């Protein structure tokens, strides 16, 4: 799940100062799950922003609406009725949703209300930990379901760096489990340690972040 964190309130105040009316657009998908941009967060942010801007001497009228997902055009369209009434949209969606709103409504200012940070798992209530970096060449079957791209501080592919602490923690971050230590422990537990010695072809990094936006095309799903 994509996770995001709420932007500092004062950053939002600076962005919106001087505007008369703003629509806070929530998203009911990933950002709702991580308590950053769903309906509940919209209903929290609206009165907070009104008060913050009143204190700063820039009273602001706020409209609110939360759609199912801001990454699908059909749901973004639900904002069409309100957008002409406002000076700006403050989107609490991830970066994908913010851009979708900006593309669908090019004549209105669109601001992000959250910082999109990672693809994460909710390990426990209130704690999300990144587990995937969308590398595009998933080899989890070779590492016993533990991802060294996302979970190794150095994204090493061939084993631990040699700096693993005695308690199994990472030398870069003492609070981080060394994922290669976890991989080896799991391999031993299954009696398959020798599989880690197999020579594997180099990882395909062509899906990495540089080189422009990625696309996935499925001809069988196109009209």
């Amino acid at each position: 799940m994509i996770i995001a964190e709420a932007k500092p309130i004062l950053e939002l105040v600076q962005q919106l100062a001087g505007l008369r009316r703003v629509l806070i657009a929530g998203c009911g998908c990933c950002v709702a799950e991580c308590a950053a941009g769903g309906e509940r967060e919209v209903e929290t942010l609206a009165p907070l922003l009104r008060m913050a801007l009143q204190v700063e001497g820039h009273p602001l009228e706020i409209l609110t609406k939360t759609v199912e997902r801001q990454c699908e055009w059909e749901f973004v369209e639900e904002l069409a009725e309100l957008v002409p009434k406002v000076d700006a949209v403050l989107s609490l969606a991830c970066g994908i949703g913010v851009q979708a709103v900006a593309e669908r409504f090019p004549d209105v200012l669109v601001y992000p209300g959250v910082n999109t940070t990672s693809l994460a798992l909710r390990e426990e209530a209130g704690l999300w930990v990144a587990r995937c970096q969308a590398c595009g060449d998933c080899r989890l079957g070779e590492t016993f379901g533990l991802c060294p791209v996302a979970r190794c501080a150095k994204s090493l592919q061939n084993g631990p760096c040699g700096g693993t602490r005695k308690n199994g923690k990472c030398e870069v971050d003492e609070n981080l489990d060394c994922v290669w230590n976890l991989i080896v422990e799991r391999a031993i537990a299954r009696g398959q340690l020798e599989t880690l010695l197999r020579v594997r072809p180099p990882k395909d990094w062509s899906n990495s972040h540089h080189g422009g936006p990625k696309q996935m095309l499925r001809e069988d799903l196109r009209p």
Partner: protein
Amino acid sequence: MMMAPRTEILVEREAEVFRPEIVVLFCQHCVVPDADLTVAGMATSRFKAKLVMIPCTGKIETSQLLSILAEGVDGIQVVGCPRQQCHRLDGNLRAEKRVERVRQFLHEIRMGTERLDMERGLDFSGLQLMLLAERRANAVKPLGPNPMKGDSD
């Protein structure tokens, strides 16, 4: 010429005196069964209070606290059960975290953290709830009236 003595009487005009408006959100299990809650209607020149009974402070959402303040209320006093005595296990602990979060927000937007606080206890009478409201009002007075007064939608 002898001038007649002048007596100046200072009249405290009610409109110029800040009487903080305090909302008390209290858990139903914190008050004695026969608590007289009509005391809130008793006139006082020092503050105004509204007593709101809720099933558990765990029901209070962050958004609700902010909405109440955005409506122009000067301060909120939350009253919940002692830490280990919530009838719903940990509702009061959740409330404590939410109150602290809103206090942090109030600090960041310069509204004043003292506009909101939480008190814990049992067997409060109506009068004791009013005393808590007065304490909140006294804490709010230095902050002045809520800037949102007269600006609610």
